[in-house]
């Protein structure tokens, strides 16, 4: 088993390296000149050249890539062109704020999706099943900003003004000091992700409930609770883990739009600001970070898949 996990890990590292290459090339292709963006339209060519030299932008491309990669590997993400401070410092607090959103949405949507999917599968063909299916299909069809705006309309402004629609915490204070402002962003992300998990769980669970071993477990006289938790759910989790991973990975990117919508001080906001400011170092750092989350989440899903399947587990250890 460890060999397979190690192999997956090696593949992940290779993918991450490829991503770093792509990110670097993509930022090179970004329109506009960082030095000009910093100095403004009135800058003289001499001053631009001087700044380029100061930022190391006059070196050959491959050398700039190697310098950057070396920096990333040693924890130095470079200097923000806009704030002139180290990127790590700039992102530190924001990563925490975004993580609060991501983890909150991930936990709620995974637990909710699995429970709803199982419930729906157990009541296949009945009204509950059709209702859950219908609602999840409609919600899945809506883009995140529509859901976000709808939530703001319903829960923040006109109908029930309960939750704040923008993040109120003053800069410097952690966002979770006022938990109420987390509700709407987390709810939005949860609503985007849950339908997929629910539908997938319903499908695999239906299949598992029709299997011979679930019928056998019932014929052994086991209580229904044990049949579901011990004999059915563990087999449905494996395939669903892949979908959960894709959804959680999507969260890492989806957070950009949601943070923008709710003016939430996370990495999504930082990315949008950095792109506007041609702040190449910050764009590179955040893109790489999001890619990293993608890869790590998928790796975890693969490992969960291996762990829940003893056949795979045994074949691999051989």
């Amino acid at each position, binding site marked *: 088993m460890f060999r397979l996990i190690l192999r997956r890990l090696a593949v992940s590292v290779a993918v991450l390296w490829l991503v770093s290459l792509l990110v670097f090339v993509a930022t090179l292709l970004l329109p506009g000149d960082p030095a000009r963006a910093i100095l403004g339209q009135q800058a003289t060519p001499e001053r631009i050249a001087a700044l380029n030299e100061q930022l190391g932008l006059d070196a050959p491309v491959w050398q700039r890539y190697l310098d950057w990669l070396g920096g990333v590997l040693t924890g130095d993400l470079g200097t923000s062109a806009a704030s002139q401070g180290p990127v790590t410092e700039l992102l530190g607090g924001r990563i925490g704020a975004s993580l609060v959103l991501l983890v909150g949405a991930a936990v709620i949507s995974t637990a909710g999706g699995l429970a709803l999917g199982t419930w729906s599968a157990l009541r296949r063909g009945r009204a509950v099943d059709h209702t859950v299916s219908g609602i999840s299909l409609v919600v899945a069809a809506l883009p995140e900003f529509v859901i976000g705006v709808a939530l703001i309309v319903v829960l923040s402004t006109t109908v029930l003004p309960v939750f704040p629609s923008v993040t109120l915490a003053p800069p410097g204070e952690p966002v979770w000091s006022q938990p109420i402002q987390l509700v709407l962003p987390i709810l939005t992300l949860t609503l985007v992700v849950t339908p997929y998990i629910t539908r997938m769980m319903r499908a695999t669970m239906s299949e598992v409930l029709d*299997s011979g071993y679930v019928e056998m477990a019932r*014929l*052994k*006289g086991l209580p229904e609770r044990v049949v579901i938790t011990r004999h059915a759910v563990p*087999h449905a989790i494996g395939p669903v883990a892949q979908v959960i991973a894709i959804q959680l990975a999507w969260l890492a990117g989806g957070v950009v739009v949601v943070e923008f919508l709710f003016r939430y001080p996370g990495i999504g906001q930082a990315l949008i600001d950095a792109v506007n400011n041609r702040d190449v170092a910050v764009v590179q750092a955040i893109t790489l970070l999001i890619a990293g989350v993608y890869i790590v989440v998928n790796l975890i899903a693969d490992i969960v898949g291996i762990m829940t399947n003893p*056949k795979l587990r045994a074949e691999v250890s051989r």
Partner: protein
Amino acid sequence: MTATTTVTHTLVARNLRVDTVTGQPVLKGVSYEIAPGEVLALVGESGSGKTTAGLAALGHFRRGLVHTGGDVSVQSGDAAPVSVLDAGERERRALRGSTVAYIPQDPAASLNPALRIGRQIDEVLETHGYGASAAERSARVGEVLAEVGLPDDEAYRRRYPHELSGGQQQRVGIAMAFACRPSVVVLDEPTTGLDVTTQTLVLRTVAALTTEHDTAALYITHDLAVVATIAHRVAVLRRGEVVECGSAEEVLRAPSHAYTRELVTAVPHLDGTGVTAASAPGTHAVASASDGDAPAAGACAGAGGSTPASSGIPEHTPALSVSGLSVSYGDHRVLRDVSLDVRAGECLMLLGESGSGKTTLSQCVAGLGEPHTGTVSLAGAPLAASTQRRTAEQLRSVQYVFQSPYSSLNPRKTIAQSVELPLRTLTDLDVTARRARVAETLERVRLDPALAQRLPDELSGGQRQRAAIARALVTTPEVLLCDEVTSALDVSVQATIVDLLCELRRDLGTAMLFVTHNIALARHVADRIAVLRGGEVVESGTVDEVLDSPSHEYTRELLANTPRM
């Protein structure tokens, strides 16, 4: 419930009625009763409702089925009989696994693949409060594993189902059922899919356990030879009704109902009797011209060898010749240096159990297999290993009929389209000639022309297999490969298919390689037998030589373990 039935019988079903949710009757008033220590065989073909009748004894109805009348009651020890179907959810659960236990058809699908087998057996004991402590339960798990002839050590209990062979898995299923010492066990075709040697072991285990613990057993099967081995009494189920019930001896030797007679005569025998195409009305709805001289029981085999070949191949050149064929998957050698010949008009039975390499061999001949060493030649000319490098003429000459007619026909193409396909790709006949050939071939396999425009889903298993045979024969091949073509079919359908193949071989002079695990079919289809074991031909010769004086230990073992009626 009258006093007489409650005193003598452990399991009593009275006038059991089950419908589908759409109102189609599945069981139309089925009654049976089983005494302690008695084995009642419930016999019927697929779709007769036998599994439904068995599961009803546990108060379980599969999705889409509803109980509409009748009752099942069980009696445990000296206690008063309990109605399984009237009981509430909780009481019914208490009965399942402790008083009434179930042994499923497919152990591979019925054991939870993610739980260790020791845990799965222990689970029944735990649920039903067997024993006061975990240690006591653990002792019982060991005891019951030993009873079914499996190792009872800790390491074995920690195995997962996939680490066991099919026979071992089935014995774990039996151990699980007998763990709580039930009064009734329901066995649903527990040996289907097992090799004959393993089947004998499993049957002996079941017989010993039911006798020892005075358990009433309901044994569901379609295999009358197995019935003869294990059952005391037999109930024959047809379309949801018990048409005949009596002692095993009576029903099998002197069946009183026409349907039972049909079933009994369809069972293949090692000595060559049986396997006649059933004479039930409707079976031969499309009689071909040759129907009048259809072969009598068992008369087909033996005639083929001397049938003159119509293809003009010299007498001494076999139509199909395999020499020195070896195939390996990695380090595992599936076939070792296999050589065999089939002459035109002759049928060679390739006999082997699962894993013997028999399917690999026929796939190599067809060009569907893995890369191999050795040669396969057709009328003396060597064939390429892969179909992609064979000529259309070579492809036309070697045709294949697959095991399952349920998966070998494209579900979205009509029968006529499927049968026509090889003509379109392998010959240059025009549309009218192709249509004529398709119609002619469908008539030859006695498939109603009205079925030609239907999709496979609308046909029965036997009709589909006829269509698959028609598809193979439409190109008039010199060599026909039949890979377990009857094993997915009911016995009476098997009989008609075997008859059909014999007749076609005699009329067309096709060389046939008949791959099977069922030695009982030998005298009905084959002229010669090659016995394959572990990728090697351990014995070959004419049917009489092999069956009457087997030279290899393995062949003797197979013959000894084949159930007879």
